[in-house]
């Protein structure tokens, strides 16, 4: 069985003839880690939003096999005046978890975030790094079959980034699919089996990670394509 994500034509913006995504069509095998690369404004976030049902493509289709969770921004829906504890429950339910599930995973979430001491403090007193850690910990505990991640890994300190990397590897070993966007080619190289390169809303290349990254980097130095 393969996870098939076929996007023929993506969403159109307010401009009459601007297609944020056009003729983007590819498949992501189940259990693989898939990287999306491309320069700013190439449509990576838009593509992820289509995958996570935030945007709906005007034409074309997307099929996903399994429960999909998206991590497009960490801490979406945190309320500044509420404590870390209250926000874990609030954020958990926004991401579709029941109270029971969150209670079960509560210790795990707090542990992974590393903000135990401040869990009863309002989150507005958190440093931005702590904020991100807590948000990420809640999101990662959703336990989806397919995890969609936008550039959120770039935040947080080195220790936390390493923790996240470990988490993704765990995910992969458990047979889950990860689709991620990153501007760090090292990250994509290390973590992804396959990659797709988007440019101005069009798919330039898709396939094994290494050659795709090479092609992308090559185009940057020569300025061609």
């Amino acid at each position: 069985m393969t996870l098939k994500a076929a996007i023929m034509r993506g969403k159109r913006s307010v401009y009459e003839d601007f297609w944020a995504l056009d003729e983007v069509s590819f498949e992501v095998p189940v259990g693989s880690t898939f990287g999306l690369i491309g320069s700013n404004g190439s449509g990576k976030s838009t593509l992820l939003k289509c995958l996570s049902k935030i945007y709906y493509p005007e034409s074309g289709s997307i099929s996903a096999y399994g429960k999909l969770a998206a991590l497009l921004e960490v801490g979406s829906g945190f309320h500044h005046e509420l404590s870390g504890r209250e926000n874990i429950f609030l954020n958990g339910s926004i991401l579709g978890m029941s109270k029971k599930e969150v209670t079960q995973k509560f210790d795990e979430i707090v542990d992974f975030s590393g903000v135990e001491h401040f869990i009863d403090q309002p989150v507005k007193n958190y440093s931005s790094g702590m904020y991100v850690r807590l948000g990420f910990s809640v999101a990662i505990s959703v336990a989806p079959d397919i995890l969609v991640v936008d550039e959120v890994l770039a935040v947080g300190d080195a220790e936390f980034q390493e923790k996240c990397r470990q988490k993704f590897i765990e995910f992969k070993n458990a047979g889950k699919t990860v689709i991620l966007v990153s501007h760090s080619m090292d990250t994509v190289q290390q973590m992804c089996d396959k990659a797709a390169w988007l440019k101005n809303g069009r798919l330039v290349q898709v396939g094994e990670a290494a050659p795709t990254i090479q092609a992308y980097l090559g185009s940057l130095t020569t300025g061609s394509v």
Partner: protein
Amino acid sequence: MGYINEVISSRELLVNLTMREVKGKYKRTVFGQLWSLANPLAAMLIYTFVFAFIFKAHPDRGNPSGLDVFALWLLCGLLPWTFLATTINAGLGSLIANAGLVQKVYFSRIVLPLSNVAASGYNWLFEMGVLVVALSIAGAFVLPWLPLVVVLMVLLALFAAGIALMLAVANVYFRDTQNFVGILLQIWMYLTPIIYPLNLVQDQSDRIGGLFGTSITLVDVFRLNPMENFVDVFRQLLYDNRWPNASTFLVCTLWAFGSFIVGVWVFRRNEKNLAEAL
């Protein structure tokens, strides 16, 4: 049916978002929830001074309760009105206030305006509780009518929710909606007999007679206003302590369901475009 299931499965989220509104609102204030009483009390003092003392507005004595207190009579209509107005205002801005969330997470969007309805409903319940205590102290026998009051409160909440849903969507596309609605609500309030009794309108109406040569009177036009009907029934139950007029109650019910059904329908039709339009 699928949509109803989806909304039902989001009820936990609805509760959490409502608690976020309720808890976040008075967090770190000394008086906390008591602030929810401050606005109606201030309004009560102002209107009582201006309308009862200066303009000498005098509503009919409560029948059969025998109450004759302008301030209490006023609150029986004013509290439902402030609930409607705050619900519409908060619900209207709910999608824009949570734009970040709508653009980054998939969930049933309808919970955003609905959580605002529930949060202002929570405050309203608190205010109405205080009003019932005050009415009882003043000598009204409200208790037997409370179940009907609760039913009517639910109906008004449905009515308010429907309007909030429609306007929340409209506000995403035309941000001017918010400004228009602020003015319209003010006009609507003064066209509803909340701070003055309908009998003053009746006097004028009798003097003018049929409008434009028809048999329709000014009072008939006033009574087309759904809020006039709601306020009327609230007063019959709380201030007069008697069975409400059945036809008026029916009108409230129809408006409530009509508004809610249209609101949900409009919202549902536009839900998928919200993230892009925000």
